[in-house]
């Protein structure tokens, strides 16, 4: 397994693993590691807002809704201390992680 530590905010707020971007989301529903690419057509889920009153993030590209209940309940194991998050990804420890930046929608940083 691969352990990565990165920042929740600002430059370096995103881990890219095997081409998939992950950000740390702090939402009204809870905190979790979010795979920031929509499974529909690869839209930017890091810019998604919640469909009002639900735990579904609506992708800004094609309005496809993605539920975060699984990420909340049984998501990628992670711990945030202050503005640093350490997560354990279920990939070989030899996998190369790139640290990048993604802008986050207001719903993901509350």
């Amino acid at each position, binding site marked *: 397994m691969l*352990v990565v530590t990165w920042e929740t905010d600002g430059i370096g707020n995103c881990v890219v693993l095997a081409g998939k971007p992950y950000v740390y989301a702090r939402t009204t529903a809870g905190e*979790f590691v979010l795979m920031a690419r929509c499974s529909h057509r690869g839209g930017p889920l890091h810019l998604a807002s919640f469909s009002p009153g639900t735990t579904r993030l609506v992708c800004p590209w094609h309005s496809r809704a993605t539920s975060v209940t699984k990420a909340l309940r049984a998501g990628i194991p992670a711990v945030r201390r*202050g503005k640093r998050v*350490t997560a*354990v990804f279920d990939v070989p420890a030899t996998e190369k992680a790139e640290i990048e930046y993604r802008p986050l929608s207001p719903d993901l940083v509350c």
Partner: protein
Amino acid sequence: MTSGRPPTHAPYPYPLSADALREAVAQYGANPVYQDSAEWFNEDNPYRRQMRPQDLGHLDFSRVLPASEILGNSALAAQRLLTSIYEADMMYLPPTGFAEKREDFSAFYNASNRTLGEMIRPALERHAYGFLDDEVHVTGKWTRDSFRSYLEAFAENPPNGDSPSIRAVENSRDPERAARMYLLQFAADFLSEASPMVRNALGNYGNPQSEWFKIIIDEYGYGVHETKHSRLYENTLESVGLRSDVHHYWQFYLSSSLMMNNYFHFLAKNHENFFRHLGALYYTETALIEDCRSQSKMMRKVFGDSADVTYFDEHVHIDTHHSRMAIDKLIWPVIEQCGEGVIPDIVRGFEELQAINVIADRDLVDQIRWMDGEPAGKDLHGPVRAAIDSGTVTAPVTRVVEPRGKLTNTFVHDEDVLCHVVSGTMKVVCGLDSHHILEAGQGMVIPRQRLHGASIESEECVYEINSVGDYRKCLS
């Protein structure tokens, strides 16, 4: 909020209303053993703990302090109260002169003090530790494998013992004074070492309980008093000219030093925090190995061969075992017994203690710097007063008149203040063996969250306290 989080932050059952809480705290603080002292030190009397009861009625312990206020006066008051409440469970006897202290003994251990303490404890814990719920958050589904990988990653980049506070001591203008201030910060913890652990020695929870007990046996020196860890620390203190009686330096503990010690009581007194305690214990026994190595080196560097560093050297050795025991004999078997669902709490304790460590280190660095004259409070008197006089800054003022010998017991301000002496002489104490004398017309800036006290050195002293907010605004 996600699952698996004990409700520190959330309301607890049967809370007191803010008013009832204030009243109960005031009642607790009215105990004779908690009154202000006319001296800076407690003389071989473990029951005396100055609480500044005059402040208690003005503080709102019903709220959760945000991280920005965690070194403020309310936090300091809460940590002093909690220390006293937790320690009512521990046994203390002064080495000498018990007969004269018997009344204090009764006042500290009597049922009213204990019961009032228990009534206010949950609110104080929430007040002082609720911020951790925001500071540390564990999420996702933790398994044995992910937890093992997390620990392995930690072991690959372990803390190297390079602590900012040790560096501050070594680089201080007066390293010996700074080192004494540093050492006394641990006295509340080390002179009663491992007492919180004993809270989890009772009951019945299988094999891990006996493993837990083995660590306690080491901490207590196998029943040989001279090897008990608290005894080793007494020797350390005495070897550098410090006193070793319990809470002799009560007024000189920083809020964060008490926060660190009380954190373990908070975890151990409330058994719902057992798994967090496991995580914090593992961090302590692991990371502090290198800390003890650095502490031992610092002692040698500052005090030379006369310093007794047995305490620190012993921990470099024994904590290598304790670290291994904590993980192999306690944590993994407990996960085996209770399931992977307890891992998030273990991770939480492991991370929370690191968060508290960072706070305590920063607090101590700032205090040592301030004892060394940074910022130079007396030099700032002129410019800050000019800014107030010219009206550039509005600073509410309190005028105080005090007689000779009056001792303002230590506390912190929540914002920078300018202390200005109108007449008489005042001594402002910034830490152990560190003070400034202020004569009429003189004054100094006392930065927010810096521990200090004062005494009057003339027949009478008239002085003003101006609350300036951020003193740097007065300089532009």
